[in-house]
């Protein structure tokens, strides 16, 4: 009848759809096969362009077809006039625009566009830039577009201040955008670079130090501009403290100092006839030109890292030929040269002394302030004030708390210790899913504080007990420590880095959750190891202890391993030097 719509049954509709799809698939496959066969035969003609265009408009991610298309275009470049080539490439660009509409995040399309723009006889960079503007207005996190924009800016020489203005606009309309903040961070140092400072004379350096490398300051921004940036980013995190991007930008602004590269400590022991060298960062001694000079004579020595697992390590050891320094009546002068960095460190071994060392104190180096220390104290203080202000308004905001902790660490790690611990506690409650991260970070800060206190007390005893330690770090700073007390914490392992503690004599780790003793490896002076109430479960776990020649006292009470059959005899076989065994 007229005017009545025939309603097809669902089954019929399904069948029709299926037929549609099949038909489409057939066309697609035919076209694709045609393309492949043409390519194989090396045919580069208009039909090929047509076919690839047809396929790519529905599937812009078909990389092989883009490749084929590029081959065709390159061939056309050789046979056509420049004006024609210009036209062809411009048509290509508009084709690409339609592809981008289908999928604005297609690798193939963006790459091809970049390729075309580079080959265009007369490129129109302004148009490319406006395309980027449009794409970013639709999705301001499209990283393909950002990369393309960076390329266009670089090639066409768009002035930096114009791009900075672009980030101003983006951030003004929506500041929750990592990409714009990040881009801003790359532009600012170019436009407002920090004027190079003379190297800081804050510490006496008995040995020559290299001038600060240019890289140290190239990513920093001049102070005037920094203050404006602080204002901008403060506006952002006060308006919405839950937006992460502003907080991360803020941390970047506050800056992370780069540690000067040097040898931080040299230790010599007559008994083992051994030299241990600690570096400011992990190195591969074999490749950095490490040279040991004893009493003016260069020595041929084999440098080894503290644990076979490490090819790069902050601490390296070498053995001197027997008899070289064993006579306690002799005085010796050692120098370790790090030839690659033109730095060295001297160490004098006096008569009557069994050991000697030379190191910079962690306090002087402001070692643990490197997280956020480039800024002047006054600036850090005022930033801390602002953050505290925000914290009063938003006591449960984790970003604010974390930033406050970092600022306090940068200003005065020991002075703010109590507040830091309190804030960590709040953090663990407020952001329970990341409580392990906070515990580890807190452990790191506790270790740093203990190292500082140890230095003030001028002792070689390191003690952190009952402080919920979950992880160990900065072990390279503990090279000289003789006694360590880590009892009543939550440590699960003594990692291989523990082997850096070359002077360790007594190790107390009672009441933890230790399962692995990998790091108790070739500790030459270790005599006493207290492991009561831990989780050592098999004999194999105790294997590393066999490498410690002086181990006499071992307390294994309260560990599952004590339930192993014949444990006593097994242990006496494994660890013959141990005389005091507690099971």
């Amino acid at each position: 009848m007229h005017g009545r719509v025939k309603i097809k049954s669902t089954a019929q509709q399904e069948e029709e759809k299926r037929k549609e799809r099949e038909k489409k698939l057939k066309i697609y496959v035919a076209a694709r096969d045609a393309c492949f066969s043409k390519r194989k035969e090396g045919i580069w003609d208009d039909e090929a362009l047509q076919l690839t265009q047809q396929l790519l408009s529905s599937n812009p991610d078909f990389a092989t077809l883009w490749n084929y298309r590029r081959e065709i275009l390159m061939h056309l470049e050789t046979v056509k006039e420049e004006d024609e080539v210009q036209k062809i490439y411009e048509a290509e660009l508009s084709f690409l625009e339609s592809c981008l509409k289908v999928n604005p995040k297609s690798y193939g399309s963006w790459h091809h566009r970049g390729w075309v723009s580079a080959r265009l006889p007369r490129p129109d960079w302004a148009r490319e830039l406006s395309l980027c503007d449009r794409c970013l207005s639709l999705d301001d996190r499209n990283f393909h577009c950002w990369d393309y924009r960076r390329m266009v800016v670089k090639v066409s020489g768009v002035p930096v201040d114009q791009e900075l203005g672009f980030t101003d606009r983006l951030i003004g309309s929506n500041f929750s955008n990592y990409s714009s903040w990040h881009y801003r961070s790359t532009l600012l140092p170019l436009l407002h670079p920090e004027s190079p400072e003379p190297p800081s004379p804050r510490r006496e350096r008995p040995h020559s130090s290299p001038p600060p490398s240019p890289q140290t300051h190239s990513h920093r921004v001049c102070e005037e501009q920094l203050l404006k940036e602080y204002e901008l980013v403060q506006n952002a995190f006060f308006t919405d403290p839950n937006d992460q991007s502003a907080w991360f930008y803020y941390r970047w602004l506050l800056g992370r100092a780069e540690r000067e590269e040097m040898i931080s400590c040299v230790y010599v022991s007559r008994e083992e006839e051994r030299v241990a060298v600690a570096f400011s960062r992990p190195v591969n001694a074999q490749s950095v030109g490490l040279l040991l000079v004893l009493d003016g004579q260069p020595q041929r020595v084999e440098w080894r890292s503290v644990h076979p697992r490490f090819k790069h390590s902050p601490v390296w050891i070498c053995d001197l030929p027997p008899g070289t320094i064993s006579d306690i009546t002799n005085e010796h002068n050692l120098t370790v040269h790090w030839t690659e960095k033109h730095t060295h460190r001297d160490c004098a071994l006096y008569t009557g002394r069994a050991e000697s060392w030379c190191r910079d104190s962690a306090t002087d180096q402001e070692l643990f302030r490197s997280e956020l220390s480039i800024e002047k104290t006054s600036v850090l203080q005022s930033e801390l004030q602002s953050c505290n202000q925000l914290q009063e308004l938003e006591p449960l905001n984790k970003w604010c708390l974390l930033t406050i902790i970092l600022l306090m660490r940068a200003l005065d790690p020991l002075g703010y210790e109590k507040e830091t611990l309190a804030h960590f506690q709040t953090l663990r409650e407020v952001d329970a899913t990341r409580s392990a991260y906070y515990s580890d970070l807190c452990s790191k800060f506790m270790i740093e504080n203990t190292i500082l206190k140890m230095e003030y007390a001028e002792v070689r005893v390191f003690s952190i007990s009952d402080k919920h330690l979950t992880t160990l770090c900065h072990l390279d700073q503990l090279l000289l420590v003789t006694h360590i007390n880590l009892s009543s914490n939550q440590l699960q392992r003594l990692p291989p880095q523990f082997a850096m503690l070359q002077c360790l004599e007594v190790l107390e780790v009672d009441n933890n959750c230790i399962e692995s003793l990998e790091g108790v490896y070739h500790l030459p002076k270790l005599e006493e190891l207290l492991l009561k109430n831990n989780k050592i479960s098999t004999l194999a776990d105790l294997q590393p202890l066999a490498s410690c020649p002086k181990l006499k006292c071992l307390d294994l009470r309260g560990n599952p391993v004590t339930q192993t059959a014949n444990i006593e005899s097994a242990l006496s076989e494994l660890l013959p030097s141990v005389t005091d065994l507690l099971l």
Partner: protein
Amino acid sequence: MTEEADGTADREEEASHTEGQEPEADQPAPSAAQSQSVPTKKKISYAQLVKEGRRFNIDLVSKLMYSRGSLVDLLIKSNVSRYAEFKNVTRILTYRNGSVEQVPCSRADVFANRQLSVVEKRKLMRFLTSCVEETEEQQAYRGRPYLEFLRDQQLGDNLQHFLLHSIAMVTEDTPTEEGLASTRHFLRCLGRYGNTPFLFPVYGLGEIPQCFCRMCAVFGGIYCLRHSITCLLLDKDSNRCKAVIDSQGQRISCSHFVMEDGYVGADRKKLATPTRLISRAVLITDSSVLLSDSDQQVSMVTVPPIAAGCPAVRMVELCSSTMTCMPGTYLVHLTCQSVGSAYEDLSPVVTKMFRTAESPEQGTTPHVRHDNSIKVQTITCLLPWQQLTQYQVIFFNFNHRKL
């Protein structure tokens, strides 16, 4: 309906007004004769306004539409929206401490605002996000003034002003539940079409009835022009209207007859409609009350009461791209509840915010219509930062029904 009806011929795309016209440009600029580096705009004369009269669409009633209000919903539902275009109100302003300030209502506004301290920004954002939900604390303030509620939230004077006058748009006595409802409505409407909750139809409010008429015509409605009804025929028993007689003597039967309230005398009505008087003023100005990067801004301005007992004045400033005024001018509508005459209610605000040119030769030309008093006057007053503005002021007093 609009005062100026015919605009069909002039519906061309308005030439874009580029900011910062260089005097050295080779386009024929009216200020080409100037030798100074700062381009000064030539004063627009009254004659010019009259000549370009067809570009003006001056609404007798000044309204804005909430983006999630019943009118917008109706326009969408009925599809009438496709007959009209709308523009976002681009900014919300307020008059405070002698100057015009922008009211931050969206997150981007709050971020960009330079007047608020960071702490105030936090407090404002927190309040705006929290007031969307009903809390017990809010219940405790039932019946008490909204201003008191805001004060107790430790929001400070700045924020209280913004929230009370520009966001909730209530008075100091309005109870909390009403103020909160109004605030929530405002916030709900943000972001639907733009950064503010309001829309304005291009070519003015007169477009809306025209669009409905168009829709009606599409569905077969018949329009009789230049006809009026001289009397109604009522059925004796049911007292319902069953026919009308038009001015040409023709009788038209009907089952329903719908008409505007004002055509019937009070004695004839079942329910007396309460009346309220509203004072209105319309200005044509040559620059915006708040200069900014773009000169094409549609602004809603709230002027809080200058003294106790005075009404709050709402002002809508329309740029030329709304097609309600000629390029280079702005159409400004002022509205407030009548306390005295329109002149008494509104001229203090006008004097405060606008500068008028002294033009003694034009003088006061009272031009009185038969059913209401419309005064067309040219007034001069001074505003420190505006250039000299010449404009016409029309004051009306209306018998407006409560809408």
